[in-house]
């Protein structure tokens, strides 16, 4: 019961998912859609685990007065307010009991994610913090570049030079500088100009950036993707066949 049944369930659902992708028949399509819905129904419940463990972690912090335990209250406040607002609704029997003008006003308040208070919290608390956390990356990427981009070894130099060229190609200044330099250089006209009179060498910075992205970058990514995908498939096979069981955790 503790090990065999989960392994069997895993096998069953895995094989069902594989088979239905090879079979266009309407019954297997129906099975496929139903399996997907099952997945969608089960996964939100996993949040139960999340919430329970979060509450446990923070109550124990408060109880043992660990460092900065006061902040745990803020976690609870944020969570409770958000849930209370988002799940707020007035049951019909209560609506019927209330005076008419109150009940119509209440019924007009949209429930769930459209609730104005919920939207306000989302717009003015969650989104700004999310966007600000994301934007911290601009600072970090600069300091990481300064520290890490030193021509210590051959590989580091390649990394550094490519990054510089791509950055120059991304801003208009890159092409401006390039075109200026080309116009200064004493190059023969037949090199610079095409037959129709346009410049062959214009906007070299953005051209170079594009070539780097298109050729060596594609090759390297492809190498990584191929290797990683083989790993993904082989692990999925191990999981379905019940060879890989680490997800069950230890114990019997």
């Amino acid at each position, binding site marked *: 019961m503790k090990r065999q049944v989960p392994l069997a*369930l895993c096998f069953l659902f895995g094989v069902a998912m594989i088979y239905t992708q090879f079979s266009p028949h309407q019954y297997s399509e129906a099975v496929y859609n139903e399996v997907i819905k099952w997945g969608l129904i089960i996964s939100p419940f*996993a949040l139960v685990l999340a919430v329970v463990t979060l509450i446990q972690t923070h109550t124990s912090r408060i109880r043992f007065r660990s460092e900065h335990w006061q902040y745990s209250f803020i976690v609870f406040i944020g969570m409770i307010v958000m849930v209370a607002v988002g799940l707020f609704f007035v049951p019909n029997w209560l609506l019927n009991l209330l005076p008419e003008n109150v009940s119509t006003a209440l019924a007009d308040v949209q429930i769930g994610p459209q609730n104005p208070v919920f939207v306000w919290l989302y717009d003015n608390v969650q989104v700004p913090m999310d966007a600000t956390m994301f934007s*911290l990356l601009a600072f970090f*990427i600069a300091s990481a570049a300064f520290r890490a981009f030193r021509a210590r070894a051959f590989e580091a130099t390649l990394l550094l030079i490519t990054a510089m060229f791509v950055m120059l190609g991304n801003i208009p200044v890159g092409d401006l500088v390039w075109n200026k330099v080309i116009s200064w250089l004493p190059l023969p006209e037949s090199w610079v100009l095409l037959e129709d009179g346009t410049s062959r060498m214009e906007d070299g910075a953005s051209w170079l950036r594009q070539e780097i992205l298109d050729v*060596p970058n594609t090759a390297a990514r492809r190498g990584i993707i191929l290797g990683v995908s083989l790993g993904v498939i082989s692990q*999925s096979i191990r999981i379905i066949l019940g060879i890989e069981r680490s997800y069950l955790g230890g114990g019997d």
Partner: protein
Amino acid sequence: MEVFGLWVAAALTLCIYSFLYRDNPFYRFAEHLFVGISVGYGIVIAIHQGVIPLAWEPLSEAFGGLWIEIAGDVTPESRQALWGLFRIIPVCIGLLFFARLSPNYAWLIRYPIAILIGFGAGAAIPNVLQANIFKQTQGTVAPFVTIHTADPASWVGTVGAVLMVIGVIITISYFLISVEQRDSFKWLSIIGIGLGSWGFAFVIADSITNDGLTATEIVGSILMVLGLLGTGYYFVSSVEQRNTFKWLPIAGISLLIIGFIVIYGNTIWNGNLTPWEVFSAVLIVIGVFCTLTYFFFSVEHRGAIQWTSKIGIGFLMIGFGAAFGNTVMGRLALMIHRVGFLINDWLGSIVALFG
């Protein structure tokens, strides 16, 4: 409310930016508030977009249908709704997550976990195989499809191609045999390489004779076959022998390339692709080959493999550099937007208030 919201958002933005200086109570406040709010948001969305439409609504309809059935007024709709009763099963399985709360029955949560994992693994296999392996391999070969302008192969070419495919497969299967056993299977590699080279020769002969044989083509094809045989011989010779023949693979590969250029240089130069496009396509093939060699784990990286994987690292570094440089713009954009919010929207509103 609008102005108040602006102030709240600005204050929280500044709280988080204060982390750049160092950890402080303002950042800690924002951090914990963020954790709480985001969990709360997750709960609300999961209930409203997952549980209610997928489980609650079909189930309540199904029970409604059941009620009608019991009352005896069967309609096609009520029959249809009864199917919703099946949703009880996933809901029950989902509820097993609550077993975590009891120390004795905590193992029950393995059921839903096993289902979710089997589901994910099953979905991954065909899709990853198709989208990542086949598509990426095809993408590497695809540019070469347009390179050829000559007529399709005759039977000579076809036989040659078959021999080449068989030869390559046999040679590869030789490499699958573990090192200790390789000596007794040496004949396999010789057959493989032999077949491959013969096939190669056939194919060249076919594609050349399509429009009559010229002297350069004969020279080129002899060079190519010699090069192939030389390189092949090096790889099947034993490790001790290899040291004396160190020059062989280099010479072999250069012969291959020279021969190739002698025959096809003209076609490629005047063909469907510009020389630059051919160069790019070849570079991608080399890059993929070398990078993938770097990810070869069951072979020691020595000799030729070491060099190949070194080039692979070079490609990886260029790729990483390009990704890094490209991301700078994206991240700066996020920051410029936040700074714009603080300066234009928030400070702007203060200025407007006083001015």
